[in-house]
């Protein structure tokens, strides 16, 4: 066990976990703050051990379409990038969703819009959870807050993606990508054999081998509107199943909380420090940390909010997840946002100040602004 404990960056953990998951292929293009994923894979040379293919593509457009090509043959394939690169991938992600292909996409977010900054951000929440590309589709979105979760969510992301035949995304922020922590890497799993792939993915375009007589066609095109509507209904049924089964979150100090913080990713850990400081002063604050940003833990937040006086949504952006939190509680509780932008990560004092300003120091009957 001890031998398996390693000190590494979140980005490196993604790469190491991918090899150990038995991932078949990685396709990516350098961009800060996630280039260590590709760099680590190239240094590890997994093609010589597990047989995993690693390729530096000519662009993120190419990477995601390589992922599409690989996934269509039933392989477990992935890419990683940061915000501007993930914007370029949106057409491909929509195609993956429409063709019901499993794949893993990692976005280690940096501040935008535009070329923005290389510093951390969470400003791609809307893009990831509301369908950044065209058409009615959803992504399973996992938000790691530790290097350990960076490693663990590789297998979780792939497993969910294969289970539901829909792409999943690890939506990390630049903090989790760049920071070093202790991590226990998963055991090395062998890559699936060709036979296992054909059993697991009978739809895959693997060439008409093993005596298969009917050809497999992976496509998102359907010009017959009646059939295309049926396809869409099937996608929506899958999304309903995922919403029913796969909501994940972490709740702390919520039982006696007077105030609730909702935060995901690295900032949730900074909020924990603020919460502990508040509790030392006798102010009872709890936290819900959504782990799946889609499906979003609406019910958990609604239940945790039943007895609180206010909810503070702390995000490293201008206020995106707050819309889902407001949906969760309707107008039953006041919900406020606190965040920094441009690559600045709030510190615990700022968070505590925001709590005081918005709720604690405000008389209960104060007029809403």
């Amino acid at each position, binding site marked *: 066990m001890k031998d398996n404990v390693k000190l590494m960056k979140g980005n490196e953990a993604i790469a190491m976990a991918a090899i150990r998951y038995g991932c078949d292929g990685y396709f990516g293009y350098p961009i800060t703050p996630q280039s260590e994923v590709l760099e680590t894979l190239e240094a590890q040379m997994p093609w010589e051990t597990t047989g995993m293919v690693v390729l530096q593509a000519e662009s993120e457009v190419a990477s995601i379409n390589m992922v599409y*090509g*690989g996934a269509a043959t039933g392989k477990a394939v992935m890419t990683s990038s940061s915000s501007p690169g993930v914007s370029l991938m949106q057409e491909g992600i929509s195609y993956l969703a429409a063709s019901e292909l499993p794949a893993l996409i990692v976005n280690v977010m940096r501040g935008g819009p535009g070329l923005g900054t290389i510093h951390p951000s969470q400003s791609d929440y809307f893009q990831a959870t509301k369908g950044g590309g065209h058409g009615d589709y959803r992504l399973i979105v996992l938000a790691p807050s530790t290097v350990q979760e960076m490693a663990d969510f590789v297998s979780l992301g792939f497993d969910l993606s294969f289970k539901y035949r829909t792409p999943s995304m690890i939506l990390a922020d630049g903090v989790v990508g760049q920071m070093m922590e202790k991590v226990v890497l998963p055991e090395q799993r062998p890559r699936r054999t060709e036979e296992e792939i054909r059993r697991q993915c009978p739809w895959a375009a693997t060439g008409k081998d093993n005596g298969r007589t009917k050809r497999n066609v992976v*496509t998102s095109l359907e010009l017959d509107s009646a059939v295309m509507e049926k396809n869409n209904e099937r996608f929506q049924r899958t999304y309903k199943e995922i919403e029913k089964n796969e909501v994940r979150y972490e709740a702390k100090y919520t039982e006696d909380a007077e105030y609730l913080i909702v935060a995901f990713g690295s900032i949730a850990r900074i909020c924990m420090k603020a919460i502990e400081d508040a509790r030392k002063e006798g102010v009872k604050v709890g936290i819900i940390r959504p782990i799946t940003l889609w499906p979003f833990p609406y019910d958990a937040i609604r239940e945790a909010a039943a007895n609180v006086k206010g909810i503070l949504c702390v995000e490293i952006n201008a206020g995106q997840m707050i819309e889902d939190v407001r949906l969760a509680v309707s107008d039953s509780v006041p919900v406020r946002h606190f965040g920094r932008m441009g690559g600045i990560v709030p510190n615990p004092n700022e968070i505590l100040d925001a709590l005081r300003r918005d709720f604690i120091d405000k008389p209960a009957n104060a007029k809403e602004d």
Partner: protein
Amino acid sequence: MTREEIIRPENKVYSRPRLIDDNYMHYCPGCSHGVVHKLVAEVIDEMGLEDKAIGIAPVGCSVFAYNYIDCDWIEAAHGRAPALATAASRLNPDKVVFTYQGDGDLAAIGSAETIHACTRGENIVMIMINNGIYGMTGGQMSPCTILGAKTATSPYGRRTDLNGFPLKVSNVVALLDGTCYVTRQAVHTVQAVRKAKNAIKKAFQNAIEKKGTSFIEIVGTCSSGWKLTPEKSNKWMEENMFPQYPLGDIKDTSKGLEEKTVEVKK
């Protein structure tokens, strides 16, 4: 002769290739796509590649190639077929992966993917039907539209001052070290069809032997886009396209391929 006599096997002179489905074909009369589909299907069958071939279909009139040629297919986003083929081929090295694309798909929106698949020397076959027009979207100008040609977006004829020069994409990829075979063919006569078929066969053989990227341009007709009858289309193509796009092999290093890896001294 009675009908019974005519349909005796020994009297058979022609039939649909085994790997072409009898699905209703959507191609216009006189369209080159149908002929090239037939050749691809014949080559896959004759080379015994039915269980090995993975086709990548484009966005363009041949988007439905998967409805006609009976092998496994993946339908790509517009222009991205070479990226899909790269991954499909690297992840399935015992398979033979080919792209089938139009000139707009390959040479406009997909030019980056084309150049990079070719320069990496992916062990794939790339087939491009160059009809010098966007057939599917109603006959707009493509990078390969010849000067003077009237299209929906060059209604008075393509002009260099407005639209630049036609992109001779085969000549471009022939310059790249990753391509082993680059040829320009046509399918307007029996003789041309035979030559084109041999070229396709050679390309598939190169892919099996992992010699690098084989690139086949077929100069073809789009009678609907050109607003000409099939017969006049062929004539127009011979008179106007062939001088710009001369037929024949542009590059062939598939025989006696030299070692391409270069050692870099530290």
